[in-house]
């Protein structure tokens, strides 16, 4: 496999439409443009499927399908977004229906309350955003908190915060309007913040309530 990736592509290959390429050239371009996104795809697949096995299958199917339809991809354009769209479609058709959506109703009901309290709560309790609150949160807590979010919020947060996709790209990957992406991000982050603040309070990283902090200060 290294033979394909070690060779540097000539400029001609970059501009040549994929359908005009030989199988070898096609493999080379695929190796350079698609394969580097394997980890990102796997990470996203893990977070939406909640299963190692499903994530591996999803990623493998994504690459097989991407290679089969590689002629539809224009070299030099956004390969990562293209691959994520394929993975998302595969997930929607083959995996989503088998997954339960735990606590969906519960979350919807609580969403409004979260919206109201989370911001005042945070600003009151954490005085300095640079300081210990964030540094004391372990990777596991962040990952767990994200994993616990309803899938629609989880997807948007991973695609935006972790994978750096734009609103427009996320809206294309998930096939929802940009406004929906924005509100899911907003709500998802609020739920996440609230969870992390509760966690931090439980662990004594931040005080139980603001009065304590004000008194002691």
């Amino acid at each position: 496999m290294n033979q394909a990736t070690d060779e540097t592509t000539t400029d001609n290959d970059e501009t040549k439409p994929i359908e005009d390429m030989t199988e070898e050239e096609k493999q080379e371009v695929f190796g350079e443009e698609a394969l580097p996104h394997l980890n990102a795809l796997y990470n996203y697949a893990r977070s939406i499927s909640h299963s190692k096995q499903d994530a591996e299958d999803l990623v493998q199917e994504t690459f097989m399908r991407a290679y089969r339809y590689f002629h539809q991809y224009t070299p030099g354009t956004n390969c990562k977004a293209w691959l994520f769209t394929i993975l998302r479609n595969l997930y929607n058709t083959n995996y989503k229906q088998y997954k339960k959506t735990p606590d969906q109703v519960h979350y919807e009901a609580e969403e409004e309350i979260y919206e109201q309290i989370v911001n005042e709560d945070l600003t009151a309790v954490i005085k300095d955003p640079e300081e210990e609150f964030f540094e004391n949160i372990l990777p596991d807590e962040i990952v767990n908190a994200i994993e616990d979010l309803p899938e629609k919020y989880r997807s948007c947060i991973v695609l935006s915060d972790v994978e750096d996709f734009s609103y427009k790209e996320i809206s294309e990957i998930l096939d929802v309007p940009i406004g929906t992406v924005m509100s899911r991000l907003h709500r998802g982050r609020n739920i996440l913040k609230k969870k992390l603040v509760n966690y931090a309070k439980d662990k004594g990283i931040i005080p139980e309530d603001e009065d304590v902090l004000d008194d002691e200060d």
Partner: protein
Amino acid sequence: MDCRQILKLYQLYVDQEMDNSMVDLVKQHMENCPDCQYRVKFEVKFSTIIRKKFKTRSAPDDLKERIKKKLD
């Protein structure tokens, strides 16, 4: 630009989805408003921390090998 507008728009700023001209207005406001500066700083940091701490899982090596083999 006032605090109410910042509250409505900060997400665009944090996610770098804001026009440059608007970004300047937000920055101008923040210079004179510690509350908004705090809020935006917090959101930026929050987003960064999610990225930093979430990017820990990489695909298993055998999956990479399997895919490469299948493509050969």
